[in-house]
């Protein structure tokens, strides 16, 4: 389960909307033990594409340091799908870097953004519950 505060949710969706027409991406800082995402780190998309994304490695480095300095970790990544549903593509599955992470998809296909979260391990995709929390 991924616990997502309203503020993290809103920052994530806003970053994805601002990134249109390209895919947008970012990282989530939080507590790996509880699956609580407490910080949204919007990052650049080095791929500058509507179909693929690459988290800017320097943004990743600074997000990782900030999370660690606050006693947290990077616990997942989010990115937008501009014209498809919020489900990991074969590319997402093939390139998933860490089986302990939460993989959040923000679909902007419909008028209302759709946020869903997955675990990806050994090529297997499992959807998980997203619990919205206060904050």
């Amino acid at each position, binding site marked *: 389960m991924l616990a997502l505060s309203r503020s993290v949710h809103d920052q994530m969706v806003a970053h994805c909307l601002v990134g249109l027409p390209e895919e947008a991406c970012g990282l989530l800082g939080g507590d790996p033990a509880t699956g609580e995402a407490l910080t949204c780190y919007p990052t650049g998309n080095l791929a500058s594409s509507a179909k693929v994304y690459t988290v800017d*490695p320097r943004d990743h480095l600074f997000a990782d340091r900030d999370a660690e300095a606050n006693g947290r970790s990077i616990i997942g990544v989010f990115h937008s799908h501009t014209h498809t549903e919020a489900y990991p593509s074969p590319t997402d599955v093939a*390139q998933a870097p860490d089986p302990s992470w939460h993989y959040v998809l923000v679909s902007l296909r419909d008028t209302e953004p759709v946020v869903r979260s997955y675990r990806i391990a050994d090529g297997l995709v499992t959807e998980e519950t997203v619990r919205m929390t206060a904050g």
Partner: protein
Amino acid sequence: MPVQVHLPTVLRSHADGAKTVSVEGSTVGEVLTALVAAYPGMSGQITDDSGALHKFVNVYVNDDDVRYLSATATPVTTSDELSILPAVAGGAVGV
């Protein structure tokens, strides 16, 4: 000389859960070789058989991606910190 290496979560299980380890080396390549020698579980996860960095891994000396320096030949001193992070990429291509 010892260099601090900051590990990503995905590699920490191979180093008894340590976030940072200290290994010897005077270049990035020497440090990574020493790291894998000390923690064989990381073998094949950072560099390929020729010693080149895998494309799905980013290595930094302090704030700088070593690909923009001299890659594995980049010199390091005991005051430098190496960070290893996974490259994070994907997308809806092919859909």
